[in-house]
């Protein structure tokens, strides 16, 4: 198993190098440069040239790339032009906020999605199944940013139950309770679509398992129906549910961009959007590389988990 993990980690290196090249080239190719973005109306050729020199953007592209890559390997991601602070500090702080949001949403959608799928499958074509299927269809069809705005209007502006935006209150103590208060709406809005997808796929995975012989055997030997479904069938179905969870984790993480914009959550997605608009090259590059590295590691973790669950997968 250790060998397998090592092999997977090694194979991630060219992927990450490829990502650095792509993100660097994209930032170099998009029109508009940081100096123009900073100077705005005052971007005369003279001023732009001077500012580019100050920012170190007057060197040839290839040199810029290798300086950036070299610095990054030593842990120096550079300094953000627009925020005037080290890229790594900003990315770590923001990523932490995103993890809290996406992690909570992921927890919600996994638990709710699997429960809904299992209940649905165990009462196929019953009332519960039909209502869950309908709810799932509705959930999948609503864009999360729209749902987020509606939730703000209803729960924050009209009912004033939850704060509109942000992660912490401007005033007062910072404790888990306050965080949950700020987290509830964005995490729910973010979880809705993924919950639907997970519920659908859990349902079909369960239905497939429930038709198999060992389920009939379990029932025949007198296992309680609840035991059949939650212990025997769900365990077998998890093999096909876990990859779905992996994909949905990625989806939740990327979907966080919209939710972070709507709820002004100080996460990495909102950071990247702002940074792109300001042509904050180093922050975009550093942020993308960091997030991509996390994706790659997460995918490896999912594969490893799957091979642990299912001995048929060769390691």
């Amino acid at each position, binding site marked *: 198993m250790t060998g397998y993990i090592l092999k997977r980690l090694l194979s991630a290196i060219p992927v990450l190098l490829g990502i650095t090249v792509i993100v660097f080239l994209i930032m170099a190719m998009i*029109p*508009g440069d940081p100096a*123009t973005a900073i100077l705005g109306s005052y971007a005369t050729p003279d001023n732009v040239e001077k500012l580019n020199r100050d920012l170190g953007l007057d060197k040839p592209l290839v040199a810029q790339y290798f300086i950036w890559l070299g610095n990054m390997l030593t842990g120096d991601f550079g300094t953000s032009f627009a925020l005037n602070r080290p890229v790594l500090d900003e990315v770590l702080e923001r990523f932490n906020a995103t993890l809290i949001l996406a992690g909570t949403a992921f927890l919600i959608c996994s638990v709710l999605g699997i429960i809904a799928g299992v209940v649905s499958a165990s009462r196929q074509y019953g009332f519960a199944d039909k209502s869950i299927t309908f709810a799932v269809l509705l959930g999948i069809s609503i864009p999360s940013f729209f749902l987020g705005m509606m939730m703000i209007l209803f729960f924050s502006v009209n009912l004033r139950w939850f704060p509109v*935006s942000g992660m912490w*209150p401007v005033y007062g103590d910072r404790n888990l309770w306050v965080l949950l208060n700020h987290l509830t709406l964005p995490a729910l809005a973010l979880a809705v679509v993924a919950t639907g997808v997970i519920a659908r796929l859990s349902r079909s995975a369960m239905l497939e398992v429930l038709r198999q012989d060992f389920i009939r055997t379990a029932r025949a030997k007198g296992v309680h129906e*609840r035991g059949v479904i939650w212990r025997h069938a769900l365990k077998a179905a998890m093999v096909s549910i876990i990859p779905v969870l992996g994909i949905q984790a990625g989806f939740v993480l990327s979907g966080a961009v919209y939710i972070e914009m709507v709820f*002004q959550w100080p996460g990495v997605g909102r950071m990247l959007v702002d940074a792109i608009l300001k*042509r904050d090259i180093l922050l975009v590059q550093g942020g993308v590389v960091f997030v991509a590295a996390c994706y790659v590691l997460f995918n490896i973790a999912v594969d490893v988990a799957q091979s642990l669950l299912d001995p048929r997968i060769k390691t």
Partner: protein
Amino acid sequence: MSLLTLTRRGILAGGTALALSLGANGAAAQTPPGVLIVGQIAEPKALDPAAVTAVNDFRILMNVYDGLVRYADGTLEVEPALATDWTISEDGLEYTFNLREGVTFHDGSPFNAEAVVFNFERMLNEDHPYHDTGPFPLAFFFSTVDTVEAVDDMTVKFTLSAPFAPFLSNLAYPTGLLVSPAAVEQHGADFGRNPSGTGPFRFVEWRSNEAVVVEANPDYWDGAPELEAVVFRPITDANTRTAEMLAGGIDLMVEVPPVSLSEFEGDQYTVHEQAGPHVWFLILNAKEGPFADKLVRQAANYAVNKEALVNEVLEGTAEVAAGPTPPAFAWAYNEELEPYPYDPDRARELLAEAGVENPEVTFFVTEGGSGMLDPVAMGTAIQADLEAVGFDVTIETYEWNTFLGEVNPGLEGKADMAEMAWMTNDPDTLPFLTLRTAAMPDQGGFNSGYYSNPEVDELLEQARVATDQAERAELYKEMQAIVQEDAPWVFVANWKQNAVTSDAVENFSLQPSFFLLLDDVVKN
């Protein structure tokens, strides 16, 4: 089965209880009295006045720092601040300022002539030990400054390399705000996150992406502020900012989107409006194509229904512009100018006179940008107006940075007209950078439409050298009349900045400078 049902019901009940109790907690969050919470449009870049360029950052800085001079309340006229008075030499090259006695920076260090010299040397002198705390993108505001010297402890003298009348206005601009040399020496490049000035509020903390907090400076030389503290919250999404205002999470909201204004009609809100030194216009390519003919340029001015644009598209958040200079520069504005009326028939006549019934024009539109208001909707309405009198308009839309990259180097070979907007702090800046023959793009200016009139060039040069304000005003007024007649642009709108305050906020008013001054504001 009963256990499952019970559990399920239990989960449901627990969840509801959780949601309710979380909600109860949220409702308790009200903003405390004496503390003003401001909804800003973005995270500031830095709190170092020499290093920043955005109005958003200026809104904080103007409350933490002072300059030698400032704009008098409600005007764009310069009055004393940290300088009590000044003299200007006959040739307009030497400015000598007497400094205010007994002022200290928030860090306790004294304000004196050496501090002023340090500030300008840091920005302008590449050999200064703290020049590397930059870059200072707007340092060119003071590019005519040759030397800054401390005559004595409380007198400072600026020597310019050429007469430059806007110098005083530029000193009133945030780039001219004065920072504590001791704090720069202590924090170096991190000064932007550890600011220290002399202003009515002193810096407390900056929580990244959450808030900048400042508190009252009880020793402020111009009287301690009424508020205990101000919190600036960055809320980039305009809809979320509106929702925060409606939910009571902020007390003051800047840059309300026109479509959201109707949300704030109730008694518990006050909507503030203030016209500023802003002008929104269409650059016309006077070098080639149909707009090379003055008659066609005038026809475009008659054809565009500016009233409809400001009232319908912008929901009354702007006024119709008459010429190149915004009326906010009251002293330099030519009151006799009337905007081109909306007269499609006159436009058709002019086109016929010019011999072009159906000129084809390419129109650069941007998706949005600093001061651009609602550029896509405005561009489409303008296209419709122009087509109604016979123009054949093709729109090309660009993202803001790309747009600037296309427009600033000049429209030749690419387009016949382009949207543009400027906010300036002196009546000199915009025409000097965009309407002179010597400001063509290949000479480093912004005259992207290649307008050239030797008379205008002459007037602008004279106005720059004149140090008497009345004399400058006459020159600018004459320039405005000529430019309006020549129509190098379609003059469209002057934006009114807006803000909303809750009923707990008193004594707040917006400034024509677009700065946010909070030292007299009261929050109950």
